[in-house]
């Protein structure tokens, strides 16, 4: 575990240590619109990831957050090379753990940051089409690992309990297929985009 994760864990422990002072919880459900980026010649279409977060306020301005995310199957552009026509797609899910400091700047509005680390499981599928009479098929491989995320958000309260959330967010999964393929084929996957969702406080 690298130094960043240790720091985040330390902050989370600090937040939980103040738990008796907190009496607020917040559950948020968001849709994360993102274009995955594998850092190569990939050209993914926009996809959606469902994100559910549980926030526990250990201080009035600081929450510990944990969450779950699951994507739809997000497809890469169909393309052709000397082998044939192919299309890759990716599907991912995982857990997040982090901190959410926030600042109330008016009665109904606040800004917040959101950062932490994540555990992922990602499935990569490739479909290939050759010429008539040749085998056509698909191949699927799954990988898991860890990563991190960070976001900047704005929340607007409709009522005391229900609020709207908008976030600009990046989620980064590290070292996909590490240990399964050669070192030069290992890659990171980034998901950058925006979150739209609702949160319920209790």
């Amino acid at each position, binding site marked *: 575990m690298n130094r960043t994760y240790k720091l985040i864990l330390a902050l989370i422990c600090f937040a939980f240590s103040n738990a008796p002072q907190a009496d607020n919880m917040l559950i948020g459900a968001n849709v994360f619109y993102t274009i995955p980026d*594998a*850092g*190569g*010649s*990939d050209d993914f279409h926009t996809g959606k990831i469902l994100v559910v977060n549980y926030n526990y306020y250990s201080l009035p301005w600081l929450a510990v957050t944990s969450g779950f995310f699951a994507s739809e199957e997000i497809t890469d552009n169909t393309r052709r*090379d*000397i*082998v*044939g026509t*192919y299309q*890759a797609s990716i599907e991912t899910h995982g857990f997040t753990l982090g901190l959410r400091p926030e600042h109330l700047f008016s009665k109904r509005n606040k800004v917040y940051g959101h950062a932490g680390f994540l555990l992922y499981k990602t499935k*990569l*599928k*490739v479909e*290939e089409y*050759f*010429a008539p009479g*040749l*085998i*056509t*098929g*698909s*191949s*699927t*491989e799954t990988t898991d690992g860890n990563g991190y995320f960070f976001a900047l958000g704005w929340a607007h309260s409709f009522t005391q309990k229900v609020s709207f959330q908008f976030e600009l967010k990046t989620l980064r999964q590290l070292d996909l*297929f590490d240990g*399964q*393929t*050669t070192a030069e*084929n*290992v*890659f990171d996957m980034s998901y950058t985009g925006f979150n739209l969702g609702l949160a319920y406080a209790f």
Partner: protein
Amino acid sequence: MFTRYFSSLPAILFSMFSLSACDIEIDNNLPDIPPQGRFVVVGANQHTAIASVQVAIAIFDNAIPVSLVGGDVVQASTREDSILLLKDGVYNGSYAASLPNPANFNQIDFLMVHAPLEARQDRWYPVDLLNIDPGPGEFVGASASILLPPQPLNLQTDSNSFINSNDSFMLSWSPESAGDIMKVRSAVSCTDDTNTYTYGTEATLIDDTDDGSENISLQQFIYDINDTTQPPFEFLLGQSRAALQELLTLIKEEGSAEDFFNSVSLVNPINSACEIQLFLFRQRDSTFDSIETNGRIFGSRSADVTLNYDPN
């Protein structure tokens, strides 16, 4: 018929080399392909001072380009280096690559191989994990060799500055006795104070034998846009223009020759200062390893020299 094929070979070859043909208007089919049967075109050229050979291949069935699929790919090699022809050439069904040849080996070998992982090497995902292999196709194992002719050495002209389009000059080079054919093409850039006009010509030679000299009129390169009679040269159009564009891109400074032939005629060459980059090709036919293979296979080496025309 064969002579007609042969005369267009450099154009075909360099057209196939082209990795992109941005904004160059060309027919997307290789010219002079027989309408019936299987036909293979293989070519290689090395330009002076370029440490690589540009290689290309195209296969046709009944004049329809055959796509290599499933990991079948052509490997071109010298004694020391090899490369897979993974990129599409300009024409349908053509594949091209640049084969390192710093030692100037003459023999270039071609072999059709089944390389499912190497053929996918430009994909972004781990191809060793995600790989659907249909197995080798019918062309795997086919082979051919090209012997490149000697480089045109000592290419020079008896004058390189001209003031009149009726002037002529003697183009000379060190002759060889192998019976190779010589071709002359040019890339011409004419400019006045504000505009530049670039175009290409294919010179009509009195004889195209490898005799070491050719008397050439400047009218093979410079013309009057107001003269409605046919100039004595052929404009480089279609595949020939794409061919020379690719060669210019290769030998000039990066970016300086982009879209060389895409300018419009705002300058009258006969009244303007023009730079003429003249290319001499020495080209030689080769044979396929299998006598059953129908097609054409050839190699060439080329050199260039620059002339200047200024009537003012």
